[in-house]
């Protein structure tokens, strides 16, 4: 049965390590009562980082496992990337979990497990694997979103996210089934081979399948009009989870999109590029326009993330090696920046328990470091120079232009100006408005300070000297287009 299949399980060492780590965390939480709960985040984070280090062993290798997954530079890149994000989120959520949530062990375990799912999405070269990894990620997120279980908003967010998620994955599956029907296989390369023949006989089925797949993935990455869960889930979820939602789940979605559309569906590029293009336009506009109206910081970040998704979809629409690497570059820069913002939000929330934009007033006076980091990060999100946002966005748009999507680039630039407006509104609260009376300076934990500074360095690194990173990404995405 398994003749000629490489079943070399060593390729999964990092994933196994992660599962082990998850188990360890839970176990520590359960069976070692005298173990200081507050150490869990450090355990999880260090474990993740170690694993990330281990997975670097696969750089420039190309291991295929039963044609289901391959561990190549693309996978490796995202492995490291996801683990890093997870580590940051674990560290950032330490105090929050202690003070506001129960079951810390499961919390970290879920984050770690979901990372496995995310990696699977990036690595899969077969529909089932891709789908199941996606579900693994989603399930963990469903739980995490409703983790604040005595909090009505958390439940609401959970139920909405879960039901819509199930709904959308039904669509996705239906699309997969049609694709399977027309291609007769679930392997990306078979699909590509099948579709490269004359498809006129079953064009409609194929198109329907593509539409549904785009729908499903559009839901995952929160593209208009499949975005509607995003603001609610972001607002309802515990803020650390929001950070995780806005980073890993999106990034994983894009990893899957890139892998699937490049190695399986590239041959029918014209059949789906316009859908993505349309979605991109709608997403950029709606995300940034509605963000103008928000007053809750989490909700605002939700909409801003929707806008960012639009930019990256622009690249997917004109998918090519250049755009792919541009997307990943932007993705990276965006994720790092986003984490800065969320670390600041988390820290502020921990100290003040507030999450309205208006509650940021006087941050300059009360927590200068956070304020500075926030300002820099928001500038970066708005795409202003010295920070990551400018160069990554510029390269992304230029790449899209090179692929003939000048108009999308146009919309992108316009909307990023709109976004600047609401980012400046936040800065205004933080820097211009005076703190309310009797608000004395806050002592930001060293952990948070350290995180902020480290991430800021990342932002500046990408913004000021992206050469190596960009080369690495270029390498990583090359394997998609062989």
């Amino acid at each position: 049965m398994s003749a000629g299949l490489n079943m070399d399980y060593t390729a999964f060492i990092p994933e196994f390590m992660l599962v082990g780590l998850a188990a360890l965390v839970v176990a520590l939480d359960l069976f070692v009562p005298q173990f200081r709960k507050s150490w869990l985040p450090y355990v999880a984070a260090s474990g993740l980082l170690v694993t990330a280090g281990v997975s670097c062993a696969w750089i420039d290798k190309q291991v295929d496992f039963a044609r289901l997954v391959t561990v190549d530079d693309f996978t490796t890149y995202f492995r490291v990337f996801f683990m890093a994000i997870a580590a940051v989120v674990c560290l950032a959520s330490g105090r929050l979990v202690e003070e506001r949530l129960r079951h810390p062990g499961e919390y970290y375990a879920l984050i770690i497990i979901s990372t496995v799912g995310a990696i699977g999405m990036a690595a899969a070269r077969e529909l089932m694997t891709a789908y199941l990894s996606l579900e693994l990620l989603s399930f963990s997120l469903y739980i995490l979103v409703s983790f604040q279980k005595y909090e009505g908003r958390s439940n609401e967010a959970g139920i909405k996210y879960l039901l819509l998620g199930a709904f959308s994955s039904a669509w996705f599956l239906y699309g997969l089934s049609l694709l399977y029907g027309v291609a007769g296989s679930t392997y990306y390369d078979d699909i590509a081979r099948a579709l490269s023949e004359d498809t006129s006989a079953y064009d409609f089925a194929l198109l329907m399948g593509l539409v549904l797949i785009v729908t499903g993935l559009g839901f995952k990455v929160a593209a208009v009009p499949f975005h509607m869960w995003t603001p609610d889930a972001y607002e309802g979820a515990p803020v650390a989870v929001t950070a995780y939602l806005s980073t890993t789940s999106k990034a994983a979605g894009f990893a899957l999109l890139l892998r699937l559309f490049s190695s399986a569906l590239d041959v029918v590029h014209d059949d789906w590029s316009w859908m993505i293009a349309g979605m991109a336009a709608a997403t950029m506009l709606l995300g940034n326009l509605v963000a103008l109206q928000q007053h809750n910081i989490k909700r605002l970040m939700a909409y801003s993330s929707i806008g960012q998704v639009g930019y990256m979809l622009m690249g997917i629409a004109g998918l090519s090696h250049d755009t792919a690497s541009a997307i990943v570059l932007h993705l990276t820069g965006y994720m790092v920046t986003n984490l800065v913002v969320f670390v600041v939000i988390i820290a502020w929330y921990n100290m003040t328990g507030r999450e309205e934009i208006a509650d940021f007033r006087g941050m300059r006076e009360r927590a200068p470091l956070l304020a500075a980091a926030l300002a820099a990060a928001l500038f970066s999100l708005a795409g202003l120079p010295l920070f990551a946002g400018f160069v990554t966005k510029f390269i992304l748009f230029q790449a899209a232009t090179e692929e003939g999507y000048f108009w999308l680039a146009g919309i992108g630039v316009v909307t990023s100006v709109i976004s600047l407006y609401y980012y400046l509104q936040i800065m205004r609260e933080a820097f211009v408005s005076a703190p309310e009376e009797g608000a004395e300076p806050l002592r930001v934990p060293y952990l948070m300070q350290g995180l902020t500074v480290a991430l800021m360095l990342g932002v500046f690194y990408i913004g000021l000297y992206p050469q190596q990173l960009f080369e690495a990404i270029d390498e990583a995405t090359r394997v998609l287009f062989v």
Partner: protein
Amino acid sequence: MSDAWVIPLLPVAGFVLLLLFSPWLPRKGDWLAIGLMAASFVLACLVAADLADAIGEAGVGSFAGISESREWFNVEGYIEIRMGTYVDQITVVMLFVVSFIALLVMIYSTGYMRGDRRYGWFYSIISLFTASMLTLVVADNLLLLYFAWELVGLCSMLLIGHYNDKQSAAEAAKKAFITTRVGDVGLLIGIIILFTQTGTFNIGEILRAAEEGEIAREWLTAAAVCVFAGAVGKSAQFPLHVWLPDAMEGPTPVSALIHAATMVVAGVYLVARMLPLFEVVRGMPELITALGLTTAVLSALMGLAQRDIKRVVAYSTLNSLGLMFVALGSGAVGAAMLYLFAHAFFKALLFLACGSVIHATEEQEVDKLGGLWSKMPITAPMFIVGALAMAGLIPLSGFWAKDEILVGIRHGHLNDIVAITVFATLPITSLYMVRLVMLTFFGEPKDQHVHEHAHESEASMSWPLMLLGALAAVAGFVVFEGVGEALGFHSGWLGFVYNLAEGPEEFHVNWGISILSVVLVSAGLVAGLWIWAGKAEPARRAAAFSPFLYRMFLNRFYIDEVYQAAVDYFVLAAGRVVAWFDRSIVNDTGVNGAGETAWYAGWLGKFAQTGKLPNYALAIVVGVIVMAIVAFGYRT
């Protein structure tokens, strides 16, 4: 002659030194300014002498002035600007007049301005003024001329507004600057047109080009009109004359220097310089004459009714300037320059005398003065000399100069109306000069208190008066060739000044004209004596005879009011309109509008987010359906 450029430089040094150090200098450093001024006066005389010799060698007519210049900036093949000096007969006359009067005024001011809060500042600015005036005179190119032109304007403004805590002074300064500025716009445009046409700023070359018809006719006309506009503004010709009377807000020495002797005649000088250009433009001489004439007549009439002694003198200045322009219009440059020369003396004299009266009485309203003859033994006679010279009574300098102009007009190619009008103004002029004298120095003192503590001014003020008085009396005689030669003017004054290469012009007395003018002038004098003698009953009756005319004269024909209205209801109103437009239309509608559009778009967009899960699901379905329909649409 290569040292002509030093003449303006000395006062510049004075300006800089006083500006920086006057607070720490003894006597605020007036001695420094005066010394430098004197030096440059001497230098000017030397230059004049050299020139005379040079002409002697070259022979009149074949002699074209001496110029030398250095590069200011230069863009190879596109624009080269040289700054330099050009010295010829007209130049030296001006040099002499300017530096001489300036010197006297500075000395006079040591008395008049003593104890002034901004004594040092006054001297530094006066130095700057003299410097730029001298520069204006020696400039060999229009750019440098404009340079100086603007600077004298600036200084005049600063000095008019010297008593800057008087609102009226501030206003007058503003008015003077802006009014002349209007003319300067023309001048600059003219200069630039000439440059674009000829590619040079050098006056000589431009004139040559103009005479040889190298400049397109319409451009030439435009340029001529524009340049003349500059002259009109500076020399306060109608319709830009309104600033000069108000300029009397300034300290009297300033009025003497700037608004009588030097700056106001800059226009005359400019026109005289550029006359060849004007002459080749059809209708230009007529225009010049017409404006000059209007100014002369109007100012003569206004002068009749003014109460402020300085203002009366100011109107007489306008009168004289008009006369000079008429002369220029009829091509009598020599006559114009002669009148300028004489006018400088007697008008400065008049002003300084006024100054000493005001200094003595702290009053300048005629109907508060009177009967000062006894009180001011030096000032009064000097004033009278000046007044008679102004009126043009033989044998004072005014007479000869005026006569030359009349002759020029008769010989000029203009029709007789001009001549007749000019003659008509003569008695009026003498009339109001007499009126002034009578009301100020004779008759009953109208204000005892003022009369009490009136006294003769000190030496530093009275000596310049006497000196000027003497000159005002005799300056006219230079017209006699003998006198001219005696003074070193080769072939007499006119031969000397008459710089256009048509050979010297003799001085000839046209007896008819002379007699006529003498008669008219003395008629005016007699009439004046009769009218304002004693209680001046006839004057009151004249005023009562036609209150309308009287009011017209008194209010200067309401020209100022008209301008004021124009400024208020046009310029400033337009400004307000534009400002409003900018704020409400361009900004609040245009700019904010765009922003608000986006804002409301977001506002609408956010309501799609109803919070109800079924709607979200519906959105997904709709998305699917739309994409599907579009896709199938493509396929079929």
